[in-house]
């Protein structure tokens, strides 16, 4: 199996796109210090998984899995697998809930820290952390 063969690359196009999107999303989550950008990265990461599932359900030559209105089933028609699509509906709902909760948390963080940059927040937290972790005979432990 030659992984550089055009056939291999084109034949697995959906997986390549999934991997590229997934890695883009993960990279943004890890590398960006801005909390909103982190949430955007997380969204891209989740979307890549949605696309992975949806493309997985595709049957070559298959049409949309809608039962004919007249109720007559024609066995010669191939249908795509609807189950992964339905699963992803649930995952999309979960993704929306996560995003909105993340954004709500960012609003509260901005109210308390007056910043949504991770480095500013870390500096603020480290200063507090060091003062409260002084040795027992010092003035440590005040909140």
């Amino acid at each position, binding site marked *: 199996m030659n992984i550089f063969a055009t056939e291999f690359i084109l034949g697995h196009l959906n997986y390549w796109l999934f991997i590229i999107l997934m890695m883009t999303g993960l990279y943004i989550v890890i590398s960006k210090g801005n909390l909103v950008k982190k949430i955007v990265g997380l969204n891209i990461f989740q979307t890549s998984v949605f696309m992975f599932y949806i493309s997985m359900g595709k049957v070559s030559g298959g049409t949309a899995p809608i039962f004919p209105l007249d109720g007559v089933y024609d066995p010669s028609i191939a249908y795509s697998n609807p189950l992964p699509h339905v699963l992803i509906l649930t995952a999309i709902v979960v993704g929306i809930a996560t995003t909105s909760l993340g954004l709500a948390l960012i609003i509260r963080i901005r109210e308390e820290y007056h910043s949504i940059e991770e480095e500013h927040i870390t500096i603020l*937290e480290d200063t507090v952390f060091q003062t*409260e972790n002084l040795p027992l005979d010092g003035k440590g432990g005040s909140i």
Partner: protein
Amino acid sequence: MATQTVHHAAMTLTEHLPILQVLIPFITAPLIVFVGRRELAWPLAFIASFTSFVIACLLLSKVIGGGVISYKIGGWAPPLGIEYRVDAANAFVLFLVTGISTLVLPYARESVSSEMPERTQTLFYALFLLCLTGLLGVTTTADAFNVFVFLEISSLSTYVLIAQGSYRDKRALTAAFNYLIMGTIGATFFVIGLGFLYMATGTLNMADLADRLSGQYDSRTVRAGFAFILVGMGLKVAIFPLHLWLPNAYTYAPSAVTTFLAATATKVAIYVLLRFIFSVFQPEFLLETSALEIIFYPFALLAMFAASFTAIFQRDLKRMLAYSSIAQIGYMLLGVALLSETGLMAAIIHLFNHGITKAALFMGVGAYVLRSGGSFYIHLQGLGKTMPWTSAATVIGGISLIGVPGTAGFLSKWLLVQAALEQGYWPLAILIVASSLLAVIYVWRLIEILYLSTPTSEKVVQEAPLSMLLPLWLMAIACIYFGFETDITMGAAKAAAQALLSGSSGMMN
């Protein structure tokens, strides 16, 4: 005719127990929000949790002999429909989760009203029940995708519950945010793994998955799927290098939330891991991929030592206990890695014993926070004299954490050492004892601060209220009770280990 109908109704109710115990907290949560009255929120939450606990006891008594209850949701038969399946392994976890939540709720009342403003307290109880729903759902379901859905229900409510600590310390917000990022990555990894398994098998029912996977352990798709599931769940379990969300989340969350999470959330995640390793995949698959040598042993040992060592140098009791939790997860992982019935029993018993031990300890912390204003060691100096009941119970928890004979913690560590010796891994047994000595150091430090130092402030500290002392002491007594009365835990763990080890053959009947 009439008697027959009544009889029929009673029959159906018992048949519906597996779904009822998930549904009752699930329906009560929005009910609390709609009723909207603060004084009714707590009783409703307690009734729901207590009902679930009674159901969990009923289920455990039914399956402890080795039986299996299968419930088809909506009457759709598996593998197409979603199946709920209760065997000894998950009934035991259900018993722990509902038991802890039923004891944490009375405790939470005083703690929550001192740590949170009045307007959020009603919503707190609703979220607590949603979190409970998620954990119970994850434990009961036999459908792999359903695990993800319930996992996210519990995770999303957990993030909000942790953020409620922001009224005491604003760092709860960043702790919740970081957990949200890592938890979502973990859950998404889990879904990717399920996607790979679905590609290879075309099914999501666990028993069906096990059946169809058994022939294709060489497949790269299946192996990639296993790796994604392991890492995804590992984030939720807080396996050593994936634990970074845990210390801050536990430290800054409200005391009642920390108690509940420490005793249940990671335990349920470990259960899912066990279920996937032993029921969906078979132990042979683990041996084939050498996942044990590369992942389980080194990271379990690292957790036991590195996390215990970090715990020694903490100055905040809550943070110290959080690190100790990471170390304890190492013991459970080690039990799994030994791949024997004794090892698995040790892991399951430790899961239960550590749940009640940590619940007792974190309840003690919550009482100190309420009365002395903080959980730093400087706040706790000399409290052994002013809060004798709280301190005594906390110390009992600490002793059980070390694993002193006569406490619950001893039983599980003893079993773990036995399991290691059974396989001839005596260096492992020495390492288990050595890491327990690290626990002696940090627990002794706590005792020293509570009893042997003089308070720095002149503030007169009162004993904790009875509503907190009672659950705390129940937990402390449980720590001792389960150290002597071993029939219940050993019996349940043995049945659970056998249910898990019988793998797919046990699931297919």
